[in-house]
């Protein structure tokens, strides 16, 4: 590097002021986004008096875990368990079926040009439009308030998304790599297991996380199709709102419990997610 190039950027002065300003803006943005999370968390730990206090209590005098204890004692945490079962099972099944279908679309051009578009178009229907026909169907099948009902519904709902995403990721894998595996002695299935899945790993993780989050947060169908047995956590939260009183502490505590699984899933898979989202845009 020449001397001129070194001196062009002063270490102090303008650059430093600019860095300080950037940092300040970043902190401000962070506060705006994190405050609701903080407020949710802190509300779950407040006593009733603190929740309704005016001016608001920014920081509770003591961390009060009583609300959580009540949720466990009343069995309300069961909703989290329900959500976990329904979201996990539907995600796994949707991923298996969807990836197989995506592979077929990507490699064998199944259904020609239009089948893939038709499949993704299924996802364009607003859920609310079909919720009552589905309700009647579920009554007829006896699936109301059952695991199997919600799981099947979420699988059906997530399949188009999984197929569409996985098709893109698989198409990004050069077909010669697979053909090379075939001539190296793999069966089609072995080529999938040893070559295609490892290469599409980031895409598989990313798609699975989004599928899981959808099922985890889904509200409209769960609201209508469940009663008491398989209440999912977003539905149970609404039960704490009442005409006479609203149980803010319970809402906050259950929300915290409901946020944690997704938070930990995303935190552990973050490495794959970041690459997963940007992958497929550029051919490596």
């Amino acid at each position: 590097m020449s001397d001129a190039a070194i001196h062009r950027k002063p270490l102090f002065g303008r650059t430093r002021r600019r860095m300080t300003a950037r940092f300040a803006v970043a902190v401000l943005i962070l506060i705006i986004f994190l405050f609701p999370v903080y407020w949710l968390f802190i509300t779950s730990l407040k006593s009733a008096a603190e929740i309704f206090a005016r001016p608001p209590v920014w920081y509770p005098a003591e961390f009060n875990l009583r609300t959580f204890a009540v949720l466990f004692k009343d069995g309300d945490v069961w909703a989290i368990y329900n959500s976990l079962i329904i979201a996990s099972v539907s995600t796994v099944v949707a991923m298996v079926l969807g990836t197989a279908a995506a592979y077929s679309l990507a490699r064998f051009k199944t259904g020609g040009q239009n089948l893939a578009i038709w499949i993704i178009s299924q996802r364009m229907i607003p859920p609310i439009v079909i919720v009552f026909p589905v309700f009647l169907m579920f009554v007829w099948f006896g699936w109301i308030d059952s695991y199997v009902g919600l799981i099947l519904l979420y699988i059906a709902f997530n399949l188009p998304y999984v197929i569409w995403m996985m098709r893109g990721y698989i198409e990004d894998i050069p077909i010669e790599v697979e053909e090379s595996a075939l001539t190296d002695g793999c069966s089609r299935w072995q080529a999938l297991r040893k070559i295609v899945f490892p290469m599409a790993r980031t895409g598989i993780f990313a798609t699975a996380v989004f599928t899981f989050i959808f099922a985890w947060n889904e509200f409209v169908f769960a609201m209508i199709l469940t009663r008491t047995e398989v209440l999912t956590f977003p539905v149970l939260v609404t039960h704490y709102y009442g005409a006479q009183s609203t149980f803010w502490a319970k809402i906050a505590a259950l929300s915290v419990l409901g946020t944690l699984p997704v938070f930990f899933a995303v935190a552990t898979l973050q490495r794959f997610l970041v690459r997963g989202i940007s992958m497929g845009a550029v051919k490596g």
Partner: protein
Amino acid sequence: MAGLRLRGVHKFYGKVHAVRGIDLEIPDQGFTVLVGPSGCGKSTLLRMIAGLEVVDEGTVEVDGAVVNDMRPKDRDVAMVFQNYALYPHMSVFENIAFGLRMRKVPNAETRERVHRAAEMLGIPELLERMPRQLSGGQRQHVAMGRALVRDAKMYLFDEPLSNLDAQLRDEMRTEIKRLHQELRTTMIYVTHDQVEAMTLADRIVLLRDGVIEQEGDPLELYERPTNRFVAGFLGSPAMNFVPARIEAENGGLGVRLPDQTVLALPEGRRSAYADQVGKTILIGMRPEHMHRDREGEQRDGFGRISVTVEIVEPMGANTLINFHLGETSILARLDAYAAEQPGQKLDLLVDMNRAVLIDPESQRVI
């Protein structure tokens, strides 16, 4: 060790008839090159041999057994792809070892064979790297290693050098030829590059539009092409084609060029054209079959033309010149320093023993 035979092989892609009834026998232990312009069906043919494409009609036979419905893994072929197709999530060692692992070769033997292949290709220091850390040339070496480590019946190459720069390509070409001489196994090599075809092949199969135009050993195709396409495809720079007419002169036969010069046909070739007098033909002259005539003497089997040089391209070892015969632009490869500047008048001797005469209607050599 395998004898490969194709009988009446066809391939359709929708309405496109890509391969049109190929009959071909690939000699055991030979180096066969399938060559032709893009879209001629050469890659499709190779992929059908590998089992990566369905044979729509006809049969592919290995050692006399039809293998049309056999999966690639059971055909025991090793293949090198144009874009290398390395497994990006495996180290170089695992890439090369993959085919052996799939065939359940014991670990110790795998290790030994991978190291031997790496030594052969001069890449032992790369074994621990990942493919993304390699240059194009190194990736190509790994792709070769992955095929060579196998003890396959046949080795298939699908334009393996076309993504390399010119110098590396020359080096690898020599390398591949050396490997074939060492291993003496059946190799089938697809390329659009006629230089690769000429230099590597024991046997060239020249394809166009899904049919075989001509097959044979490289110099046979070069010296005795059967039609205009073959004559024009092999050789660099390409053969010159000039419209001409067969005429009787001084008791012999000659070819009258557009500038009215008559090139006498050598005695040995006269009888073949005795009944063609008056016929319009194309005469094909290779650039290297023209020489500068400094002495003005009559040499047997050579015809003399007088030309005005238009462009001089000195190559060092020889000199390319450009001139016109009638409407046709001609390229000749002369000795170094045989021509100095544009506008210069030269006498050239044309080797009439090696010129080809072509029927312009059928495009076949007569």
